[in-house]
């Protein structure tokens, strides 16, 4: 056993109506890579925010290096040697790497000294990074390196990483893991938050599992199967989606050289995407966030109109048609962002059912809404997809993220689409609900619909896809049969380790 670096004793934190952490105790050893596991809402974020000084616990205490540790703010935590890399980066696109890092420092050294130190750290830990590149031009993986190096410059004793691999390709994950192992060998402890169990098994020595705010167990992930850990997280047995194999039918959706500029600044344009999707198949589209996923969904849903001759639904050119006509034909979509895109937060679930269901479910007649039918439809979605809410009159905002996601996906599936495109269908949804959503998508395909699943979760895509393609900088790779694809092959399809060589060249 290593000596204890940080001990948590009986931490409890309650918010109005919900206990985020209840009597959580565990210890992190010096140089240990410690995983913190749990579903969404299990209390992982609250716990690390407590350690980082962002949240003050109601009860319990922390001991760091044998001394009482109660950081009043993140600055105090950093001074004590606790650093954190957040899931969402806080970097300025218009500044270069060194300037961004200087912004986070109390007493920044001169640009030249800082650049030298950045290069030194980046070489020592195998994190190639040019201090003078503008952050706006960096890939997600490189941005994460900026955040990690920013932390390493403080010489931390404990490095907290929140879902660090969700934006990385498999090759980039390998690089990150090497860095983390090296840090661990030098005595820096790492608290690693993730729900990707295979990664945790590859990297971590100890795992603490939270469920509903409580510590429900500790295990050695190297000797525990992913399934066992998942069941500890869920507190029950896990249902694995299954499907009957169906012979692919005729082509339902065809994209021919689909190109479109992004409607947003800093968005990614779509470049010459070619694709055939057949009835009865699930096509998985992987890719690191920000490589054109949103734009592809917008182009298919009809929010983004494209030039003629690019999008064909059952042979009919629909590129210039709006969402209503595409829905009438049977081309349905569910965007990634639930609040404010797939659903209007301040409107009731009944109104949100009208939002996409009006045309296909006949919720209006001669321009007048049929509120009775709309409510019935909303209640059907709520019941069929187990949406936890007191009723259809509640606002979308009042639902938890996972519940709203179930509503949004269920709303499209119950409209019996011919082609359904979903983006991040199980993002933020707990494991059992995610399994239910995947099962519903598979059932839809078995019944003869064509399904396109855009996701950043490769495990999910491998589980349900018949064919797999990758989106990289707005280009789509040639789809390949999903069974039998190796992680390395997928990684290369995703664009490999983005710009890994660049930093070396610049040295």
């Amino acid at each position, binding site marked *: 056993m290593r000596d204890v670096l940080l001990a948590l004793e009986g931490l409890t934190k309650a918010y109005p109506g919900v206990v985020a952490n209840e009597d959580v105790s565990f210890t992190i050893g010096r140089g240990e890579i410690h995983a913190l596991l749990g579903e969404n809402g299990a209390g992982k974020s609250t716990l690390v925010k407590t350690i980082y000084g962002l949240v003050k616990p109601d009860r319990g205490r922390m001991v760091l290096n044998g001394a009482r540790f109660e950081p009043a703010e993140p600055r105090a935590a950093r001074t004590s040697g606790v650093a954190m890399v957040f899931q969402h980066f806080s970097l300025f696109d218009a500044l270069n790497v060194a300037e961004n890092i200087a912004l986070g420092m109390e007493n920044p050294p001169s640009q030249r000294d800082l650049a030298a130190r950045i290069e030194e750290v980046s070489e020592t830990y195998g994190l190639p990074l040019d201090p003078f590149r503008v952050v706006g031009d960096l890939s997600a993986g490189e941005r994460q390196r900026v955040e990690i190096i920013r932390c390493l410059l403080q010489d931390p004793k404990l490095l907290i990483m929140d879902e660090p691999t969700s934006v990385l390709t498999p090759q980039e994950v390998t690089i990150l893991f090497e860095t983390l192992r090296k840090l661990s060998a030098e005595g820096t402890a790492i608290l690693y938050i993730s729900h990707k169990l295979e990664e945790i098994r590859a990297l971590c020595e100890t795992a603490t599992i939270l469920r509903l705010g409580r510590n429900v167990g500790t295990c050695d992930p190297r000797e525990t199967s992913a399934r066992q850990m998942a069941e500890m997280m869920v507190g029950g047995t896990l249902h694995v989606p299954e499907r009957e194999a169906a012979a692919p039918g005729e082509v339902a959706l065809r994209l021919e050289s689909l190109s479109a500029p992004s409607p947003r600044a800093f968005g990614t344009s779509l470049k010459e995407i070619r694709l055939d999707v057949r009835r009865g198949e699930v096509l998985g589209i992987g890719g690191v966030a920000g490589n054109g996923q949103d734009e592809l969904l917008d182009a298919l*849903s*009809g*929010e983004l109109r494209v030039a003629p001759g690019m999008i064909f639904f059952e042979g009919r050119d629909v590129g210039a048609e*709006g*969402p*209503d006509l595409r*829905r009438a034909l049977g081309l349905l*979509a569910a*965007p990634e*962002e639930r609040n*404010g*895109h*797939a*659903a*209007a*937060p*301040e*409107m009731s679930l009944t*109104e949100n059912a*009208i*939002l*996409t269901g*009006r*045309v296909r479910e006949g919720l*209006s007649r001669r*321009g*007048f*809404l049929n*509120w009775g039918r709309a409510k019935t439809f909303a209640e059907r979605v709520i019941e069929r997809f187990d949406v936890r809410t007191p009723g259809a009159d509640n*606002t979308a*905002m*009042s639902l938890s993220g996972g519940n709203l996601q179930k509503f949004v996906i269920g709303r499209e599936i119950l409209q019996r689409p011919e082609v359904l495109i979903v983006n991040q269908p199980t993002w933020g949804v707990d494991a059992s609900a995610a399994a239910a959503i995947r099962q519903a998508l598979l059932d839809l395909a078995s019944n003869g619909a064509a399904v396109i699943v855009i996701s950043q979760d490769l495990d999910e895509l491998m589980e349900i896809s018949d064919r797999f393609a990758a989106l990289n900088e707005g280009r789509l790779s040639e789809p390949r049969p999903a069974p039998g694809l190796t992680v390395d092959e997928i990684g290369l399809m995703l664009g490999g380790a983005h710009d890994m060589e660049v930093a070396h060249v610049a040295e």
Partner: protein
Amino acid sequence: MLKLEKRQRPSEVWSYATPVIAVLLTMVFGGLLFMALGKDPFVAIRTIFWDPLFSEFAFFYRPQLLVKGAPLVLIAIGLSYGFRAGIWNIGAEGQYIVGAIFAAAAGLALYPMEARWLIFPLMVLAGAFGGFLWAMIPGILKVRFGTNEILVSLMLVYVAEQLLASMALGALKNPEGFGFPGSRNLAQWSSSQNLEIVAGSGMHWGVVVAFLAVIGTYVTMSRHVLGFQIRLTGQSPRAAAFSGVNPARLVLVSLGVSGALAGLAGMFEVTGPAGQISIDFNAGYGFTAIIVAFLGRLHPIGIMLAGGLMALTYIGGEIAQSQLQMPAAAIQLFQGMLLFFLLAVDVVTHYRVRWRRPASARVAAE
């Protein structure tokens, strides 16, 4: 220390209570203002709010309530379409003027024909069309070139005022008016006059149309797809685009509706209470209607009540001016206070106000 916490959803109770509280606060601070001017605040408040309805001479003032309220309600109802969708037409005053000019011109072109069945409806259509056209200028500029509709519609008010002066002095000037500026009197020509439907009630055709607009808008907002799309666009523009709302079309529709209703208000005014196109025909209804729209929470029934209240302060204000020698500016200030307090008090519908003691004990200060 006072602290504001965002509510999960806007409080329903407060959204009904705040207009009442705003009126009460306006009375209190308005009273202080009148006191500072050396008037008895209680007499002043009574003169403004009580006398028009219940005094000895109320029979004279009560019809005025409908006459003043109708154009305010009509314009504010139109504005509520755009305001709910986040499209800000500030130029209803201009659309009101142009509607009046179009209506007067259409009628006067046929003068002195005696055919009320033809001329009056024609003028109604022309008025609505004029307001619609004037509102299409900021609408099309916004849709085609992305200009800001607030600035364009506001600036067009001043253009409309110049147009009005030019009409009163030129094209529409009464040829038998001995050179005085202003058109023929449309209220005295039987083909065009917008008279009271029931004598002595103040109930002219504009009042009828205002009530119809209230009912029509209520139905549109609660039952029609257009109302749904307007509310959706106001709350989440991206969800609206996903749902299939065409933003450009919505801009044109909501500006068109507000322009047409403002033009109608101008038509009923020029053929009734005002009687003629003159240099000072417009009385600020188009701007006051913005206050009315917000005071009524952009809800048709609320707008109807708010229009009545605002008409009351107009009439009461006039009485206060003539009986208490109150300056006109003080009355305008008083009306402005109403909007100010409404917006200020509105905070509590969206936020919970908490009083936090330094000793971390919390007491809800609701």
